[in-house]
């Protein structure tokens, strides 16, 4: 019995000072946290860096610019309180074809103006003729002036038709030219995006949004929200409702999120809820596979350099295996307590806001220890088996990799767990011993109702599977340790499992 502790001590002491242990304990967790929260920082920081320029092609003639700018300013500001978006009209005055057409348009318009002027004069004159009955040749004058009025009106109508035709052409040219301009500005990253308002946008509710990154959902969502406000406001104004009321109606809405918890309500924070358990799973995984990996490499090393023969002549194979699992399991506990200590320090210095993270409790720490121990014993026994049956280190590493992949698989489903920690599928998967520790460590903090049944159930199941695994691995370990460089057939392994 004493020899178990001697072996355990040896394994513990020779690993605790190793570089890989120190790395996995003190550096990896920070690296991991940094890596997974990095997108978060980029996401939050990047848009804050500069004001974004938004181009505007306004074909509605309703002076959208002011209104758009006002709404954007009201909703989105940078940290320094200056506005995050700046709206600018896309100018086309350096397009010669547009300028030519525009001057022609002006010319027609001035022609129309002068004709209208003449028309109005004639009308005025005729009014006088009517009123003043004492004019000589009044009938004649009225008739001739009527003809003149008819002619002028005809001319005016013709010019009007021409003008409206021209206006349509000019608008479409403006749209084309402005869009060309805006595209080049977009291309050279001067503009972040540009918007096109067609004349009937208020009626159709359609606004074009041009950008290089239509997948940037955050931006798209913001503009949808702003435009919704603007368009609805326009529609309401068209229905003659006073502005003062509108102000009140359109005050922005903010959704404050709360989650129902056991110990009263608490504000729900996506990052805390999502990243916390994710880091938890990572740490658990790290602990199990650091210590389990050592069990594995220790068996492999003693087998490949034949120290195993000396050891087995002094201690029994179960003492050797027990010692390894004991010593390295203890190493894992040391690792976990280092993390608890670090967490404690971060909490007490306020780097981690304790009041916002409801799941940092003693009870959950205990669950963490329990699931570590179970996971370690389970995977440790498997590692002993693999270490002792594999003919080469290469084969063994291959299987090791596979096991890691299986164990980390629950992380891929972390969003599902977040959405519903007690979904039937998740519950079912939690009862697979390979996945139990990872799933339970995510579910316990996330579940709103207590999952006592699942906790006791999985613990019980794990204990049974560990017992089973240890019996099998003990037999295989004893039989296989003296085999060297021989590939074992599954039949051979099977016969070992069966005998005594």
């Amino acid at each position, binding site marked *: 019995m004493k020899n178990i502790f001697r072996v355990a001590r040896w394994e513990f002491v020779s690993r605790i000072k190793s570089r890989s242990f120190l790395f996995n304990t003190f550096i990896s967790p920070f690296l991991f946290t940094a890596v997974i929260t990095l997108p978060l920082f980029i996401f939050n920081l990047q848009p804050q860096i500069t004001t974004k320029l938004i181009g505007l092609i306004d074909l509605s003639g309703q002076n959208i610019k002011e209104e758009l700018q006002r709404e954007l300013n009201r909703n989105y500001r940078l940290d320094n309180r200056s506005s995050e978006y700046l709206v600018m009209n896309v100018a086309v005055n350096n397009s010669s074809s547009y300028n030519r057409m525009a001057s022609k348009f002006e010319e027609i318009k001035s022609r129309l103006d002068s004709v209208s002027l003449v028309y109005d004069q004639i009308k005025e004159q005729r009014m006088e003729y009517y009123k003043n009955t004492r004019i000589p040749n009044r009938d004649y004058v009225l008739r001739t002036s009527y003809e003149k009025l008819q002619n002028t009106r005809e001319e005016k109508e013709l010019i009007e038709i021409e003008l409206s035709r021209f206006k349509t052409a000019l608008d479409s040219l403006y749209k084309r030219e402005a869009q060309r301009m805006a595209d080049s500005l977009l291309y050279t990253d001067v503009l972040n995006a540009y918007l096109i308002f067609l004349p009937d946008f208020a009626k159709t509710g359609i606004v074009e949004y041009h950008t290089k990154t239509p997948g940037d959902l955050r931006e798209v969502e913001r503009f949808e929200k702003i435009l919704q406000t603007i368009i609805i406001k326009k529609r309401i104004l068209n229905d003659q409702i006073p502005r003062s009321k509108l102000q009140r109606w359109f005050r922005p809405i903010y959704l404050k999120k709360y989650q129902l918890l056991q110990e009263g309500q608490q504000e729900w924070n996506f990052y805390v809820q999502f990243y916390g358990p994710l880091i938890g799973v990572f740490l658990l995984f790290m602990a199990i596979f650091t210590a389990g990996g050592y069990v594995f490499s220790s068996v492999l090393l003693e087998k490949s350099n034949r120290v195993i023969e*000396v050891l087995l*002549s002094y201690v029994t194979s179960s003492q050797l295996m027990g010692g390894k699992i004991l010593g390295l399991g203890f190493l894992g506990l040391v690792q976990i307590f280092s993390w608890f200590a670090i967490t404690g320090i971060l909490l007490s210095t306020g780097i981690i806001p304790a009041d916002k993270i409801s799941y940092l409790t003693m009870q959950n720490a205990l669950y963490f220890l329990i699931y570590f121990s179970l996971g370690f014993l389970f995977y440790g026994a498997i590692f002993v088996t693999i270490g002792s049956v594999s003919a080469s280190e290469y084969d063994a590493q291959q299987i090791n990799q596979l096991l890691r992949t299986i164990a980390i698989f629950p992380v891929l489903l972390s969003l599902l767990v977040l959405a519903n920690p007690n979904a039937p599928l998740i519950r079912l998967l939690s009862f697979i011993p390979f996945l139990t520790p990872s799933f339970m460590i995510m579910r316990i903090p996330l579940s709103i109702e207590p999952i006592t049944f699942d906790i006791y159930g999985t613990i019980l199941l794990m204990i049974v599977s560990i017992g089973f695994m240890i019996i099998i691995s003990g037999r295989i370990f004893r039989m296989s340790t*003296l085999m060297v460089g021989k590939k074992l057939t599954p039949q051979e392994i099977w016969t070992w499992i069966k005998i005594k």
Partner: protein
Amino acid sequence: MSENILEVRNVSKSFKEQVVLKNLSFTVKSGETFGLLGPNGAGKTTTMRMIMNILQPDEGEILFQGQPRQRLKGVHFGYLPEERGLYPRARVLDVLVYFGTLNDLAPRKAEVEAIRYLDRLGIIEYTDTRINELSKGIQQKIQFIAAFLHDPDVLILDEPFTGLDPINQSVLQEILEEFKKKNKVLILSTHMMDQAEKMCDHICLINQAQVVIDGSVSNIRKRFREDAYYLEADAPIPFISSLKGIQILEEGKNNYKFVLEEGSVSLAEILKQVEQKTKIRKFEVFEPSLHDIFIRLIQEQTEVKS
């Protein structure tokens, strides 16, 4: 001083269909060096592993002091396995103390003993070196120390001399002599017959799963003595073969191995005749070496079988 006795009784061992040992029996007494000899694959290592309780015999039993081996603690035994290896990253003293404590030595005592032996083998300067920074031979010496650090009653060395230079071989021999004097059982296996001849008092030759010969070295020698003589001269002496009553067994350039036919010619006569022709460089009664006996026995056995 009471005698320690290790008995191997009717032990058989097979790996799957291959019979490695069949009905193997021998007895080793303390105070003698027991040599387990045999060609490659004879089952020497397998026998040692069974004595060390690493493998279990299929049949038969192994007794130490009349007690079955399985019931005894490992403490009484020290073992140098055939395949050498240690923890490459660990430091010399740490490894020795570890093995010492596994055999119930107090850590402090293990440390003292380890340093004593390191000094004795002239490698005290490597006390705190990592194993993988040492040469093969030095690593082997450290394994020796690990084998007898806890002063076992039975010391089993599987091919201890391979890989050691002559100086270290004699240092090791010295230590083993000392060990033997302490009334302990010492078993070693080797391929080097001259080593076995020098070291062993008692040998057991196994081949094809069975004991071919078992006994003290001097008895075996006596058994294989052929009353032959060995003569070496300065120049060739071809006339010797024409002499009456002489039978040449082997002929070299200037040397001859021969036997005399009963009562035909006297030894003095022959020597006189040779001396007239040339100078005698060496003359002796021929003693067969273990090497020769080994080869002869193995060859005979193989012939019989086939």
